[in-house]
């Protein structure tokens, strides 16, 4: 089904993709409208700033406590899940994760997998791996279903089809869903999706889902959703495979309520999602439904690199609410696809370098105004601007031994570093500064009128014909 039109290649064409969106008033308007909507919904959920701050502090401390014990908790989770009858698998790379999932499918001769919303499955490009292995992988979250039909990727981690208007979706359904006529009535469109997907839930051999929180002490997988597709995928097919990053773990069940409250309120401005699903075992003897096999795939994919550094570890506190992108002035203008990464926006900029290396992502850290909005709204207080500064340093300073990140120094340029060094030297020495400004004022006519990106929207930079110090001297001051 998917034509694989939009492959993730963050390093290539970031500027061009951004420009395409900025130049499209229609897309800009739809992102602006959607982000304004999400921001006001979130604000309405947190009328009491003291409550918000204390809950954020609690959320941060819960995430930091659990990350500090991560390897121990993973072992505890594995032991309790296994005791409950859930099979645990570990994958270091996307390829390993795909091989595990496809292995489970093949052992059951599965033909069709229905998927609940899972960004980690996007991260490993599971749909393409499944198709290559002859297994249909169908997205069942409405937004994901829409982008899959369109042969695209999600443009937002919570609202995958946020870039599409209802008219576009109406045309898409009329073109691609059999027996459907054009309608842009939203209820009717949802009904069309519902009817197609209900049949698939009934037929599917495998249901795949993500995990929002994995509880170590009880061996429980928690899922947050509104549609019921997550419940369908984890209940109707005979096998359920869950996939999660290794960081989504809490030790205690009591850690879940504060995080759930922060997640749903920050993400979509709901005080709770319609469904909160806690799965602790496969079908037990005597039970009449639910999958007979449940698997969990724990994926590293660069997370252990982030974990190794005290500052970068904070990246893993993320609960994937999407609030940072909703509030980001850059995301709002360029949309999610421009980034070319699974996770767009501020969280994407800080997590993707660990997954893809700095070679592929060094420009991303620079695509920020450092306005601080992302850090201010993050429900678990990830200091995103501070991490962006750190990533810029990792990407653009000269390569050295024992780097903290794969691709350290990937954006390093001898010329750029020398220019900045020269600049610093001039500004540190009064005499050099004097000479430089004297030369600048005498030869200002030499400045070119086209100065790259600067002059695309601004007048050319040109030193003043006379220096301030000369003018002051004249006035005798």
């Amino acid at each position: 089904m998917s034509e694989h039109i939009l492959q993730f290649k963050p390093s290539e064409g970031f500027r061009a993709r951004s420009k395409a969106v900025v130049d499209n008033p229609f897309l800009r308007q739809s992102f602006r409208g959607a982000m304004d909507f999400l921001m006001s919904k979130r604000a309405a959920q947190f009328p009491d700033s003291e409550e918000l701050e204390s809950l954020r502090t609690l959320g941060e401390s819960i995430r930091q406590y659990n990350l500090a014990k991560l390897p121990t908790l993973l072992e505890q989770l594995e032991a309790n899940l296994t005791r409950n009858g859930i099979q645990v698998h570990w994958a270091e790379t996307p390829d390993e994760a795909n091989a595990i999932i496809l292995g489970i499918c093949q052992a059951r001769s599965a033909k069709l997998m229905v998927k609940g919303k899972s960004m980690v499955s996007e991260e490993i490009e599971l749909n393409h791996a499944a198709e290559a292995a002859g297994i249909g992988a169908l997205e069942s979250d409405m937004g994901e279903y829409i982008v899959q039909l369109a042969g695209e990727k999600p443009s937002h981690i919570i609202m995958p089809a946020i870039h599409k208007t209802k008219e576009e979706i109406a045309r898409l359904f009329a073109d691609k869903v059999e027996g459907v006529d054009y309608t842009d009535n939203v209820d009717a469109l949802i009904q069309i999706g519902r009817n197609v997907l209900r049949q698939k839930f009934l037929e599917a051999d495998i249901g795949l889902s993500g995990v929002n929180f994995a509880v170590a002490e009880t061996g429980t997988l928690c899922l947050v959703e509104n549609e019921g597709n997550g419940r369908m995928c984890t209940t109707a097919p005979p096998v359920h495979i869950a996939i999660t990053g290794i960081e989504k773990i809490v030790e205690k069940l009591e850690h879940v309520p504060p995080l759930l409250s922060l997640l749903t309120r920050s993400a979509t401005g709901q005080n709770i999602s319609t469904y909160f699903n806690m799965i602790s075992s496969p079908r037990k003897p005597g039970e009449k439904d639910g999958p007979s096999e449940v698997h969990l795939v724990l994926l590293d994919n660069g997370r252990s690199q982030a974990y190794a550094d005290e500052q970068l570890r904070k990246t893993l506190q993320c609960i994937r609410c999407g609030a940072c992108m909703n509030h980001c002035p850059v995301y709002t203008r360029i949309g999610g696809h421009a980034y070319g990464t699974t996770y767009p926006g501020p969280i994407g900029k800080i997590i993707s370098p660990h997954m893809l290396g700095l070679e592929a992502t060094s420009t991303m850290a620079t695509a920020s105004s450092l306005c601080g909005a992302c850090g201010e709204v993050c429900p678990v207080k990830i200091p995103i601007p501070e991490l962006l500064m750190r990533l810029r340093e990792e990407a653009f300073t000269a390569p050295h031994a024992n780097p903290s990140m794969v691709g350290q120094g990937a954006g390093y340029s001898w010329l750029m570093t020398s220019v900045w060094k020269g600049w610093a030297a001039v500004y540190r020495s009064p005499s050099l500064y004097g000479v430089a400004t004297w030369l600048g004022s005498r030869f200002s006519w030499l400045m070119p009128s086209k100065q790259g990106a600067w002059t695309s929207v601004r007048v050319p930079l040109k030193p003043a014909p006379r220096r301030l110090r000369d003018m002051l001297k004249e006035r005798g001051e």
Partner: protein
Amino acid sequence: MSARDRILGKLKATMPATAPALPDVGGWFATHRVVESSADKAKRFRACIELAHAEVHAVTSANWLAKLLEVLRAKQIDKLLVAEETAHGEAVLNDFPRHGIDCQTYDLPIEAWKSEMFQQTPASLTVARAAIAETGTLILWPNADEPRLMSLVPPVHIVLLDAGKIYNTFFEAMQTEGWANGLPTNSLLISGPSKTADIQQTLAYGAHGPKELVVLMIGDEQ
């Protein structure tokens, strides 16, 4: 070396030597959440779940069956999925056939009647274990009598709730009931009918699960 050993090895090698103190979740809830009377909790629960598009009827243990019949008639539903081995299921089974309601029971594993469940089951009745006032949430623990798909597949889901079992918060529910000591196969929080806003942020109900959620809240006999 397996992927498991490599991942755990990397994490252990860089794990902080000391963990921060266990966060005081109980302390936070004690200072930040109201504790209400039963009547207030029922009111708040109702207001919240109605805001999420659920239909709530206050009933008594004497009249809930009549109300249920009225709800089915109003929705022109003549078939209801109920659980045999439960008191409320038996009550319905004993009473409704004479009113022309076809009562279906979930007495076989789903494999034996999956298409029928998906295609010919307009409504179901299940019981809630408890509820949460703060968010307007029903707590369901599906079991062998009332399996998981009962609350998911039929387009109309009707839930019986004892108004005396409403907690202030999710945290209070799990603490009071000692959930950390063991959870069932699948436990659920449900806060309204299935919905989505994936098409141009326009809210639509009945995305995959029930289009309608009806709560019969059994309270005092007045």
